[in-house]
């Protein structure tokens, strides 16, 4: 339908707002609509057997198809909750309860967010420091770089519970253990991107710095760091998403009572599928918001530095 409507419109001049909308927003909207439709269809299909059982047990085996569809979309513990159920649960656990309540996703989201941001900040600083060391020292480059790459083939997420439990045993609890996992996950993209970025200045510019007889420190501050900024932001987008995953998985071990990960785990223990999906939606929104935030800062900083839009 939407496709047919646009075809009949006259071709817009390139670069116009309408053209931009039609090129990008419309296809995305159609695909999202298709996903939601598929989701509803899936919910009906997956929940139907359970619902048929319920009808039979309730002594009303002569149900109509409309009844079946309506009931499958409104079960209490569906196999696949329908989008509007998830939306309702999300609304109920964000807007309808106080943000300080244990039932509020805002409270759990905040717990996750704070360790994500702490880990991300520490990981970014550590990653930049490592990259600066690697660019300036051949010994560091040769001995560290292979290990940094190998470190990421280790499924650190899988050992997150151990880190949490062991640090708990020595009395380090709360934010720090989770932030440590976030930091481990986020330093890698930063280091790799920054090594590339710090080496990105052209030979001609480095030579110019030499003719000025600039010290290593001056080359770093006045040439290498400014030209690495675009690389830094690209890496930060990857790193902040990784940091969030780290924080969520860090909340999985039992004993942690707050955070989106803990919410996932308790939902899985008690079979509260709607609660799991609502927590997933919250985590996804958080991830999207964080990446968008980095993008906005990127655009502002690059514009300030005189990059072409």
């Amino acid at each position, binding site marked *: 339908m939407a*496709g047919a409507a646009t075809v009949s419109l006259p071709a817009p001049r390139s670069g116009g707002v309408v053209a931009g909308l039609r*090129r*990008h927003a*419309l*296809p*995305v*909207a*159609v*695909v*999202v609509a298709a*996903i939601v439709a598929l989701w509803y269809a899936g919910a009906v299909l*997956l929940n139907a057997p359970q619902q048929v059982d319920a009808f039979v047990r309730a002594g009303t085996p002569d149900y109509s198809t409309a009844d079946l569809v309506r009931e499958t979309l409104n079960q209490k513990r569906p*196999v696949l909750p329908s989008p509007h159920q998830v939306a309702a649960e999300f609304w109920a656990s964000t807007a309808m309860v106080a943000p300080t309540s244990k039932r509020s996703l805002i409270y759990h989201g905040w717990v996750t967010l704070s360790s994500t941001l702490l880990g991300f900040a520490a990981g970014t600083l550590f990653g930049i420091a490592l990259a600066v060391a690697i660019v300036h020292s*051949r*010994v560091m480059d*040769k*001995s*560290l*770089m*292979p*290990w940094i790459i*190998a470190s*990421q*083939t*280790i*499924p650190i*997420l*899988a*050992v997150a*519970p*151990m880190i949490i*439990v*062991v640090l708990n*045993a*020595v009395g380090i609890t709360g934010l720090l253990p989770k932030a440590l996992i976030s930091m481990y996950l986020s330093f890698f993209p930063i280091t790799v991107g920054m090594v590339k970025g710090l080496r990105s200045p052209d030979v001609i510019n480095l030579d110019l710095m030499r003719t000025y007889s600039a010290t290593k420190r001056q080359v770093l501050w006045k040439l290498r760091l400014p030209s690495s900024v675009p690389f830094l932001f690209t890496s930060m*987008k*990857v790193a902040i*998403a990784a940091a*969030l*995953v780290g924080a*969520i*998985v860090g909340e*999985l*071990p039992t004993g942690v009572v707050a955070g*989106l990960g803990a919410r*996932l*785990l308790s*939902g*899985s223990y008690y*079979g509260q*599928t709607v609660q*799991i*999906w609502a*927590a*997933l939606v919250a*985590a*996804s929104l958080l*991830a*999207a918001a964080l*990446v968008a935030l980095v993008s906005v800062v990127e655009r502002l900083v690059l514009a300030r530095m005189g990059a072409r839009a």
Partner: protein
Amino acid sequence: MTSAALLLILGLGTALNVALVRAAPASAALRTGRDVAVPLVFGVTLLALWQVAVTGFAISPVLLPAPAAIWGKIVMEYPTLWADFSQTFLKGALLGYAIGCGSGFLAALLVDRVDFLKRGLLPIGNLVSALPIVGVAPIMVMWFGFGVGSKAAVVVIMTFFPMLVNTLAGLSAAGAMERDLMRTYAASHGQALTKLRLPAAMPFVFNALKINSTLALIGAIVAEFFGSPVVGMGFRISTEVGRLAIDMVWAEIAVAAVAGSLFYALVSLLERLTTFWHPSFRAR
């Protein structure tokens, strides 16, 4: 005493590496040997520091077991570790990896034919890559049970989108000149695909295969935290943590690290063999 030993080891390792890096190897083979030796020396230094620090400062094995103790555990518990490895990696992770990468690749081939779909799916695919997809693990365990199926399902979902997005990007990587050349040959869509665009997309496909190789292991292990049979690396890690048998956990980590690195190395080797023409593999 211990501190002196630590400083000595650190100094020796650093001095050896500085000497190795400063040395000017005569031949290419020697240079390759040097490039392998330097990280090895660094790693051995690190292990030695770990061992001496743990024994010297008498750190409780519950907190951090010594490398020698972990190695002993690996040798002793070899059958258990192998059973866990084959359950999690050979069954769950590899199955999901194959299905996820395969379906992502095929979906990209289909989507590539419809420009409208491509413009709609790419932003969504990029967004999904940033989402914490591991979170679907509890749902998959509910749907597919405690067995291998749910682990594979998590891995499929985690690996699908990186493959889709990368393959789509790769399929548009062939230059306009080469495409025009295909047109002048009157090549069909299939011919242009197999002879030009797929080969050009291979570096991107391998990028996704490499990203996915680590994601697959992570997905399979994390999914086991939400329910598993009494075998598997994730199951072992979570139960042994509960019993504070940390040396066994480290043994599992060592197995996972070696498996992950080997898997990654294997994909990289395949990449070298397939995309030998790519500029990044030219001899310097």
